């Protein structure tokens, strides 16, 4: 009786149906120490090699896969510093696997036209390449941009587009200096970003 009689009273004080309350217009401002974690999975597209005797050349590689983990921390509401550990694989004409594991530091600048976030960034660090039993440590630069949709204040989902620039230097005699090349690859990946 008491439960039934309470229903009309409840209906009188709240006429609005339940609904999802969206985030307030505009994002919460980031500040020093705010952090983010992202996981990225997608495709690696080999573009071209250059610095060889023929200049620009085809890579001879297949489209491959890429995955990475990234951590970042905001310095202010726009700029973040972070670190990324990734891995990619691609195949040669004879089925050999080229693995690359970049370990990079990263600086990002965020554009935030609500409800989207568009960071542009530059990563730099060390790339470990492996083909059969050959391993090589090279520098790497990773300029790129992402496009995120903010699902809620914590989670964003989006796309990454990143250029991998990997100069591979050899001084000789084995491997010869003429085998120096710069590898150019394009990462296209889906991303889930968590702010905390």
């Amino acid at each position: 009786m008491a439960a039934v009689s309470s229903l009309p009273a409840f209906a009188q004080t709240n006429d609005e149906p339940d609904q999802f309350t969206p985030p307030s217009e505009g994002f919460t401002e980031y500040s020093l120490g705010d952090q983010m974690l992202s996981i990225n999975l997608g495709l690696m597209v080999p573009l071209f090699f250059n610095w060889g005797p023929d200049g620009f050349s085809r890579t001879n590689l297949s489209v491959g896969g890429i995955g990475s983990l990234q951590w970042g921390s905001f310095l202010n509401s726009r700029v973040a510093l972070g670190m990324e550990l990734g891995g990619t694989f691609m195949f040669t004409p004879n089925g050999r696997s080229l693995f690359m594991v970049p370990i990079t530091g990263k600086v990002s600048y965020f554009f935030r036209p609500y409800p989207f976030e568009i960071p542009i960034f530059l990563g730099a660090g060390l790339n470990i390449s492996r083909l059969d039993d050959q391993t090589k440590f090279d520098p790497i630069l990773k300029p790129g941009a992402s496009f995120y949709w903010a699902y809620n204040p914590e989670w964003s989902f989006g796309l990454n587009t990143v250029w991998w620039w990997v100069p591979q230097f050899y001084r000789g005699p084995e491997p010869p200096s003429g085998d120096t090349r710069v590898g150019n690859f394009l990462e296209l990946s889906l991303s889930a970003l968590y702010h905390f």
Partner: protein
Amino acid sequence: MRFTTKTPFRLLLLLSAAVVAMTACDQGPVGIFASIEREVAIQEGNLPKKVAVNGMVEFDLSGTGDDVYYFAAVGGRVRFRRADGTESDWATIANPPGYDGGSRPTSIVRVGDIDSGTIYVSFIDSEGKRSGIFTLDPGTRAFALVGTESSGGERLIQRLFAVSDELFAATVTPGTSGTPTHDLRHVALPTGTPVSIVVTDQSEPFIGAATDDTNNWFVTTKALFENLSASPDNSATEISIPSEARETSLGGIAVFNDGVQDFVYLSSRSGSNVTGGSTGRIARAPVGDDLSLSVSWTPITQNDRAFTGFGAANLNSVSTILVGTYRTFAGSRSRVASPGGFMEIPEGTLAGIRRPAGNSYVAADFSKASVFGFFASGEPEFADTVFVLTPGTGLWRGDYGGPEPVWVWE
């Protein structure tokens, strides 16, 4: 672990450090990106790929040079095809009765000329109890037993050697104490009897033979035996090889003329087991010199690979010795000790030893696997072609007629 704001960074840092720590830097002979850029797809034939190849011969059916066939012991069967490539697929010959299933041809050699000689094939059955030598008629592809078979696991025929138009068989018998003994036997032709023992009671298998058509040399992984023409009973004398000319274990032996004179070439490796090793040595001594004396031998500098057996071919008009290598690893397989593949020694000049050129070689599986033997046709029409025989990566053909060798997985 308490999750703090610094935890993700520390975890990522730890993961990165682990990746770097577990990665040994081994650059190899060619640049990674450069080798991929130049890589061409390896063509493949119809032979089984991941099998052992235990020998190869050629035979001219018509005697005119127009009907030359290759015969190879690949996997558990002998297979054949035309040498001129008009039929690129290999056909299979059924094993002799009693040698089906897991039985295998352990060796194939030809005694005599390419158009009039005789092909001999040794078999061991699937249980390792029965073994025999058979002739193979190249026209009818029929096997016929030579002499008598061995049974009960005794005198299993591991390899045949055709030197100086004679047939020798390397046999193994399990010892009563479990230690096998290895013998080298001379097989009288054409009937296969008598079979006389040339060298007996060795602890290691016979792995190679060479001849200058007058004298013969045989090697186990430990010892060198000399069978001089002056020995009427076919006995062979062990030669103590000076330490300057060898490593722990022997790999193979060859006789090669460098354009001036005949030399005996000897390969060796640092491993003390039946297989393996991380370094090796090749030495040569003039035929006729006392091989037990240090002064007779000219060694090359120790090389960073464990050498196996020899071959010879005429490649781009240059007489070239070929020597195989093992693929071995150091420690817990984190580092390649001996890379595999083979080396070329143009004109037998030891200072000129080199890795085969070309990106096709780098891309070929056998360049990163052990190589035990070679075959090159004696017919001028098929010069610039060499076959590589492997213990587990099948049969490979190298065509040296172009700017760089092109390799095909038969």
